[in-house]
């Protein structure tokens, strides 16, 4: 068995439920998933409490590698972020030409917006996007609400408040409480969301089960995994694209 820390957004996508049984069947490896915030996942890796992590926050991952906690990072797959909002779309996001434009529309309309506010990969992406739109988050009025919660909880909040929110496509498609919400904007390359696998450095933490971490990595970049990941869809919509380099 091995322990793998993953982010909530990955787990909420439901892909793990597809992959884990196959992994078990094909290479006899039981993967125990720890579903936590991005920051916490990195912390678990630093402390050597897990054998590998799977997250989506490039800057933080690079730092992790630079500090020597992982020998390298291996990109596995990507999906994209999407802008969700109330179905009647008061900020007219549907007509947005780019992610920046979409955010500007929200700001202009002062429509309620939910921010994850938890320094997760999604939150960091959102901040980058506001930055790109040349908008200053700290100057936003009460319409901008930092909820400090996981993806699902934040979506629940957005649903209850009729607010806009940035989410990853997988979480959105798998989300069960879509009442009143709709996917309003997607497709800008700026919304690209890369997932990477980082095995914990066995030199730093000798008890880490490097062999199985390796085995899992090997499987994750295999053709089998590629087929499963690319083939995973909800309501006919594909969620992830495999992009591991061999």
């Amino acid at each position: 068995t091995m322990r793998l820390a993953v982010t909530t957004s990955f787990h909420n996508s439901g892909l793990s439920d597809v992959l884990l049984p196959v992994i078990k069947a094909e290479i006899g490896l039981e993967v125990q998933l720890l579903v936590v915030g991005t920051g916490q996942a990195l912390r678990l890796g630093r402390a050597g409490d897990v054998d590998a992590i799977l997250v989506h926050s490039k800057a933080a991952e690079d730092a992790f590698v630079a500090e020597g906690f992982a020998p390298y990072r291996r990109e596995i797959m990507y999906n994209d972020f999407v802008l969700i909002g109330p179905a009647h779309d008061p900020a007219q996001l549907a007509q947005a030409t780019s992610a920046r434009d979409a955010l500007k529309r929200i700001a202009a309309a002062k429509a309620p917006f939910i921010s994850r506010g938890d320094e997760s990969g999604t939150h960091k992406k959102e901040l980058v996007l506001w930055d790109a739109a040349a908008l200053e988050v700290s100057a936003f009025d009460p319409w901008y609400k930092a909820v400090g919660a996981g993806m699902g909880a934040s979506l629940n909040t957005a649903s209850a408040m009729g607010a806009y929110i940035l989410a990853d496509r997988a979480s959105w498609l798998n989300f069960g409480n879509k009442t009143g919400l709709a996917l309003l904007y997607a497709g800008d390359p700026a919304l690209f969301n890369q997932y990477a696998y980082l095995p914990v450095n066995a030199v730093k933490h000798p008890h880490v089960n490097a062999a199985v971490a390796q085995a899992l990595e090997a499987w994750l970049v295999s053709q089998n995994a590629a087929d499963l990941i690319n083939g995973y869809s909800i309501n006919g919509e594909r969620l992830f694209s495999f992009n591991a380099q061999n």
Partner: protein
Amino acid sequence: MTDIWAGLEAAFWLIVTLDSDLVEITLRSLQVSVTALVFASLIALPFGTWLAIRRFRYRRTAIAVLNALMGLPPVVVGLIVYLLLSRSGPFGVFGLLFTPTAMIIAQVIIITPLIASITHQAMRELWAEYHDLLISLNTTKRQRIMTLIWDGRRALLTAALAGFGRAIGEVGAIMIVGGNIDHATRVLTTAIALETGKGDFALALGLGFVLIALALAVNILIHSLSRTEQEGRW
């Protein structure tokens, strides 16, 4: 281990610099918990006492249910309150979701059974002692309850403090109904959960120590006000 020290250090700095965010969420924590405690006590103290003096057919079942309700999972309470208060829920029109009021409602539901159960336990003893006298004096139900509450007030303090402790440390329910919105519904526990999720354990622990210090201060304050132990046996 170093994290624990870092946490103590963080707590220390947060307090000495009187960090304005910290002050804000601490006050909100206190406000929510104390308000919830007041409402819960207003329900639970008379109810627990009433249960101690009343003999009715399903009394044992009622007590078992009450004890079971102490185990109400906060997350479930949070969910139910969320569903009731949400726009599409029956009380949606009041727009209470994601306000401190919603958090208070959830906490009242969580701590009322705990307070009522401890109250019931304490009042049973006192009622056994007073029973004959109060029956003989032909007291009304109301008078009995008032007498027991008054004379057993020190025992009820433990009940109330247990409720306060549960409220101030609770996170599952208020996270759902409050939403942990910065500057609106963020309290100490939800902030701790957030920092934990961020992996900033030192800050999370720091906030935790602030919370524990707060609970301690409230307890010591109330204990010295009520001088529980000074009046001898009672």
